[in-house]
């Protein structure tokens, strides 16, 4: 299936004369801030969802808020679509450019403006890397909690757009729980602050609405985040299971025992073997599944919790429970998990990473179904989960050079996401909808709910110029590609025009 912007289903875009646009922007912005040759535009043609590429009309790299305002005012007036981009590490195609639009890179907004250890906050520009915030806070014994696996490269502006998570979400929350305020520029070029340095703000919680809005509501030009004191100690337990279902039960049992681990990750056998071959983390390659459970806090509490967790894991059928002996082994245990994606990349020419979430109790049922489909589609699946919060990352292995395999992988992935919705979960836990899951949005939300999303969008961007085609599908798209039930051969939405 081709997921590139399709005006038949995603809405018509205005025709824009590139030369006229370039001339106008050259009057508004310094020339170094504009890229227009094919050679310069090419590196921006995709983000982390590299199967889909579109060369944008122009790339703009402003470095002042005034420039962003001037650009957006112009785009609003002339109806030029704008796609914002942070570091371009997103996995759902949220920063996939439009052939008829400008790509607005925030990469030059790369300064840490303030680290305030008294108030435990950092104020940064959107292009600052996630890990750079923790590095800047480290001398004060503080850190920024959300740690998506791309944290060495991904930017905080992109994290806000995607409501990025990581392996420590269950205990420390997502981006939305760790951002105090954002400065945004609306498509009309107006600057406003959502949230504040205080713990709440007057009026509606527009910050909560904005976080995770995937660049459709406004452009972030500054972010203030909360910093946390580093936990005194962190300990990791590695448990092996001969049955994936036992590992799944152990996850619920640990939480039911009143322990909230800093991280609780599961890998299945294919993922274990791939990671072990790659990193030599010391994983048990014969295990059907492993659980990695990190406990952090004060030394006494961590000791008490790890005793408890070990007992629970054994009661749930763990054949072996190992505690990392020292910091080196702890890093080693995590290294295997963190390298799971590239490790799978070594055993398959391509893989397709899913991001569904489910209630934890549905885990055995979902895993069994994935296994059945894996056989039906003839494609292997390596399962890696943020088990503590029910966030699955099944990696579907395929070879794009084999005709039809990408299509099959996408169909398989689509079925997994629809299953996540059917068991009460979501099509995306942390990677975002972007372009990748635009059709599955029609399975998770009914037409009326999508209409509410469009109403929210209209309140911020009535002309629909910010990141069109992402996050919220049109009715026409749902009618054409959505996973809607067709009863008695009648197509849903007979009132809609067919193209």
């Amino acid at each position: 299936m081709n997921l590139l912007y399709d005006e038949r289903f995603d809405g018509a875009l205005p025709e824009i004369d590139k030369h006229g646009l370039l001339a106008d922007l050259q009057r508004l912005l310094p020339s170094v801030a504009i890229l227009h040759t094919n050679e310069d535009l090419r590196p921006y043609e995709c983000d982390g969802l590299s199967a889909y590429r579109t060369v944008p009309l122009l790339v703009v790299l402003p470095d002042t808020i005034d420039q962003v305002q001037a650009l957006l005012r112009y785009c609003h007036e002339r109806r030029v679509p704008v796609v914002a981009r942070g570091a371009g590490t997103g996995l759902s195609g949220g920063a996939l450019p439009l052939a008829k639009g400008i790509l607005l890179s925030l990469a030059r907004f790369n300064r840490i403006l303030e680290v305030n250890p008294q108030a435990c906050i950092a104020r940064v520009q959107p292009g600052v890397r996630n890990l750079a915030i923790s590095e800047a806070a480290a001398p004060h014994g503080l850190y920024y909690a959300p740690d998506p696996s791309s944290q060495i490269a991904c930017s905080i502006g992109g994290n806000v757009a995607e409501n990025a998570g990581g392996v420590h979400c269950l205990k420390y929350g997502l981006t939305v729980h760790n951002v105090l305020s954002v400065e945004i520029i609306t498509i009309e070029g107006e600057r406003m602050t959502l949230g504040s340095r205080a713990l709440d703000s007057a009026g509606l919680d527009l910050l909560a609405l904005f976080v995770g809005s995937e660049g459709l509501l406004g452009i972030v030009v500054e972010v203030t985040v909360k910093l946390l004191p580093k936990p005194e100690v962190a300990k990791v337990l590695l448990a092996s299971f001969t049955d994936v279902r036992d590992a799944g039960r152990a996850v619920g049992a640990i939480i039911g025992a009143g322990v909230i681990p800093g991280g609780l990750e599961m890998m299945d056998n294919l993922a274990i073997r791939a990671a072990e071959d790659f990193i030599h983390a010391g994983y048990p390659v014969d295990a059907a599944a492993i659980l990695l459970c990190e406990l952090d806090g004060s030394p006494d509490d961590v000791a008490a919790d790890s005793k408890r967790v070990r007992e629970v894991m054994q009661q749930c059928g763990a054949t072996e429970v190992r505690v990392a002996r020292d910091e080196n082994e702890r890093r080693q245990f995590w290294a295997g998990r963190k390298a799971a994606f590239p490790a799978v990349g070594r055993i398959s020419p391509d893989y397709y990473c899913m991001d569904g979430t489910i209630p934890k109790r549905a885990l055995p049922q979902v895993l069994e179904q994935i296994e059945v489909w894996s056989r039906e589609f003839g494609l292997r699946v390596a399962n890696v989960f943020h088990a503590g919060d029910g966030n699955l990352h099944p990696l579907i292995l395929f070879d794009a050079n084999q005709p039809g395999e990408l299509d099959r992988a996408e169909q398989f992935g689509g079925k997994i996401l629809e299953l996540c919705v059917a068991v009460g979960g979501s099509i995306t836990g942390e990677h975002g909808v972007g372009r990748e899951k635009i059709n599955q949005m029609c399975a998770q939300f009914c037409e009326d709910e999508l209409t509410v999303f469009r109403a929210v969008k209209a309140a911020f961007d009535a002309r629909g110029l910010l990141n069109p085609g992402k996050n919220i599908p049109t009715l026409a798209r749902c009618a054409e590609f959505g996973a809607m039930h067709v009863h008695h051969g009648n197509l849903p939405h007979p009132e809609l025009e067919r193209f």
Partner: protein
Amino acid sequence: MMASMASASLDGDCSVQWQEQVRTAISQRQLLALRGGGTKQFLGRGVEGMTLDTRAHRGILRYDPTELIITARAGTPLTDIEAALAERGQMLACEPPHFGAQATFGGMVAAGIAGPRRPWVGSVRDFVLGCRLIDGHARHLRFGGEVMKNVAGYDVARLMAGSFGCLGVLTEISMKVLPVAACRLTLRLELDAAMALRQLTSWASQPLPITGACHDGQALYLRLEGGNGSVESSAKRLGGLVADDSFWLALREQQLPFFTDSQSLWRLSLPPATPLLNLPGTQLLDWGGAQRWLRSEADADTLRRVVSEAGGHATLWRAGTHSGISTFHPLASPVLALHQRLKAQLDPAGVFNPGRMYSDF
């Protein structure tokens, strides 16, 4: 006892009936005054309109302690929710105040008020995972879900927290819950307010199990929660005398002597580490200084200017001699305009609690 009997006899799904009521209101241009138990009715402007009382729509729909999620109808008494959680050693970690026996789950979310644990554990909206609501077209819709992580579409569910019924009728809410800590200890330290604020600032960057910090004008109260080990060792380090845990309930419910006064009561929300503000009146510091209560008849504009300059906002919680003053801090004009556009989009007929938060929408 009465409450639980009422609960049994009134149990039922009222959503279809409410949809009809909203549909009628829209078509006849009637205004609707949404209310639960009315315990937070004093906050915000009065609403003229037909009452839509949510209390008949009650009941816990799903609660699985291993999922850390509870889903209940909006009219469920908050005490029922807390009792069900307590039975399994869990809690609403944002520690919402009740302000009366009639408080409902939906009202708690609509008001979005959190208790003493807020700075360390999270706000009401932080724990909202999903909701069902009747929107401004009388449609019964679902946003968010019953999973910890869900970034599909805009986060409409969290937007409902603290929206005071201005955007729709909440019918069901799913919230994340947390286990109650194994160990809890309250300490009382004899410090003046300025010194207490300085101490709290230095503790904030250290990994201490503090989950409550309040200076009541006399002394600093600290609550420690965690495992036995961390609570005991921190208590030794922090000093002070052991005090009664009931302090936190009295604080949450505004039953401390400080709150029993007829003067105007202001709630000041300030950035952490803000020093003591020089304002006329008497102050009580909660949230480690990030939420301050001020009894004062000082001029509202002056007071709000001082608080704004410090990076915060001021809510007129209970008006004494103040009249005609907006309950909530005035919004910056572009932000107000955005509120108005959002209200117009989500409630085009303007039927839900118009003017409850601000006269402008």
